[in-house]
């Protein structure tokens, strides 16, 4: 009773707010629950017709059931679906391993290299009796995860180089890095994706062509590198001067100082904001729908073009949103816990500045 009073009715305005919000919830929630669960069509022999009959009364989740393989794996050959499924497990294991503080060592890079090679092998095949599957047929949630994973994995070293370059004392190197980072951060991702899909073919010598997936992946890598570089730079800036001086006093040169003293500390500091960039990047991979790659969002969208399922966009996009939400919320939660757990937590920055 006391708890109720403290949290919901502590003052007249608060009590009024509670009552108004409760009223709104009671008005809005039951119809929504009716639509989403009670009256919803989940399965059935002729689900599409049943969905049409229940139009406006109940949600059509049968669409998701009907298309789940397509949403997961796109147009990957049906009999070979165990391969992307297995690759997805490897991929999730890689992310899981990287989340452990104990694994933040140099060997993690080696594990990633092997893991990515295994994923590539599984997806492409073409050896040991696995039929070759060209990457035009990769798709669905798996493609979203692949674009994110390979994108971050390739952008990360590039980002470190850019961040170091931006803090370099060599004016030419610094200017080039600043120019690159600010250019990329100043334009929308979609313009980079357009550039990759229509301009990249023009950049290459005649006879050499790269496919659409790889082109989009290159654009995503170039994009992610600029944002990651700024986060890495933040980590570098947080390293106190005496660390540099101590390394100098030991007689270390620039490269050994950077590799063994500065970077290991800077990257650890930068992990929570890095995860936030990762969340943003994961969401941004959905933009490939605009240049026609079959990622999760495209698969959900394309299924709606069949006459039988047209008009169920609300359900389809709610499902897509929920899928993205699970991944993003998990990553956000992880990043927040890291921030709270780290002893020298510097969040919120304004407070740490000691005003």
């Amino acid at each position, binding site marked *: 009773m006391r708890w109720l009073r403290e*949290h919901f009715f502590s003052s007249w305005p608060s009590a009024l707010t509670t009552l108004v919000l409760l009223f709104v919830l009671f008005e809005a929630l039951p119809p929504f629950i009716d639509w989403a669960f009670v009256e919803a069509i989940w399965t059935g022999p002729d689900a599409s017709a049943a969905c049409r009959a229940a139009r406006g009364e109940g949600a059509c989740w049968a669409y998701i059931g009907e298309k789940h393989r397509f949403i997961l794996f796109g147009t990957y050959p049906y009999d070979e679906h165990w391969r992307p499924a297995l690759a997805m497990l490897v991929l999730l294991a890689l992310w899981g391993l990287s989340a452990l503080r104990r694994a933040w060592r140099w060997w993690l890079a080696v594990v990633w290299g092997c893991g990515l090679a295994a994923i590539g092998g599984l997806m492409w095949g073409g050896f040991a009796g696995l039929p070759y599957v060209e990457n035009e047929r990769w798709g669905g949630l798996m493609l979203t995860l692949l674009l994110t994973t390979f994108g971050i994995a390739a952008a990360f070293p590039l980002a470190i180089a850019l961040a170091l370059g931006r803090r370099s004392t060599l004016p030419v190197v610094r200017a080039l890095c600043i120019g690159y980072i600010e250019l990329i951060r100043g334009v929308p991702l979609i313009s980079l994706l357009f550039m990759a899909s*229509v301009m990249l073919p*023009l950049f290459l010598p005649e006879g050499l062509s790269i496919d659409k997936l790889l082109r989009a992946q290159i654009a995503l890598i170039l994009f992610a590198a600029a944002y990651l570089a700024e986060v890495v730079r933040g980590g570098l800036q947080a390293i106190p001067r005496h660390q540099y001086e101590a390394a100098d006093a030991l007689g270390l040169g620039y490269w050994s100082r950077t590799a063994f003293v500065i970077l290991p500390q800077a990257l650890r500091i930068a992990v929570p904001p890095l995860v936030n960039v990762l969340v943003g990047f994961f969401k*941004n991979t959905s933009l490939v729908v605009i240049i026609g790659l079959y990622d999760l969002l495209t698969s959900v969208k394309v299924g709606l073009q069949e006459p039988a399922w047209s008009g169920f*966009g609300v359900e389809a996009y709610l499902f897509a949103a929920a899928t*993205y939400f699970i991944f993003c919320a998990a990553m956000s939660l992880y990043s927040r816990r890291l921030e709270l757990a780290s002893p020298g937590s510097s969040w919120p920055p304004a407070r740490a500045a000691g005003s």
Partner: protein
Amino acid sequence: MKRSAKRAAIQAAVLLAVGAAAWFLVSNTLSNLEARRIASGFSFLQREAGFAIGESPIPYSAADSYLKALVVGLANTFRVSAFGIVLATLIGFAVGLGRLSPNALLRGLCAAYVELFRNTPLLVQLFFWYALITETLPPAREALQPLPGVFLSNRGIFFPLPGSVPVLQGFNFSGGAHLSPEFAALLAGLSIYTASFIAEIVRAGVLSIRRGQREAAQALGLTPAMTTRHVVLPQALRVIVPPLTGTYLDLTKNSSLAVAIGYPDLVSIANTAINQTGQAIEGIAVIMAVYLTISLSISALMNWYNARVLRR
């Protein structure tokens, strides 16, 4: 002396490498353009565009030039970004302050809002709002009327202006002001998504104000609302404004997702022009130049404002 010679050598080498890469790309591009017989240069801007644009704040017809079409696109980008920035700021401040409310129910709902919208891609939200408007709202004849004179239908939102009230004529409304489904979905998506980021910034800004400030204001006899308005917010703004700039920029850049739902913003018009003329390099250069200009101007404006807030 030896050190400076080494530094000069490194920089010369970097410059040489970047220059060589640039030359390689440019020469490839030139020979490719020649092989494919694609014209280059910006003279196409003067040619007749030949396509109609769904909505335009300035008069435009298909007989106008590509340049005019791009200007229409830019105006549409500005239109949706300006409304979006205002709406996102309002919602963002309300939700951010709501998360700090003593009322647990309000706090919980605001937290749910932030988590929900921040953790789903903007593009999915855009598709969702667009589907909600075009698929679930009734046709114009059976339009919903939440307020007198305001009509919601799958043709978009109609609302009255002074001296002009929307009236049903045939299959659509005429008169009043009209938000197309594309504009409404884009505006809703952009402002609701961006507001979730602004809310977090506002919350962090208010939390950065030490408790003593609030207690001192209360000791002076100010009500909680007055304390927030006159003591906490002015100080919190110093922390809030710099990251707020970033979200405004993001919103403007994100308005380019309009191309996915068919709102004729700069990017979708440039995209149409590229498809018609084949002049991809020029088209993308226009997009990038415009967005870079917008980015740099907004950050300059915000730096100026920030300097003013700091001085107070």
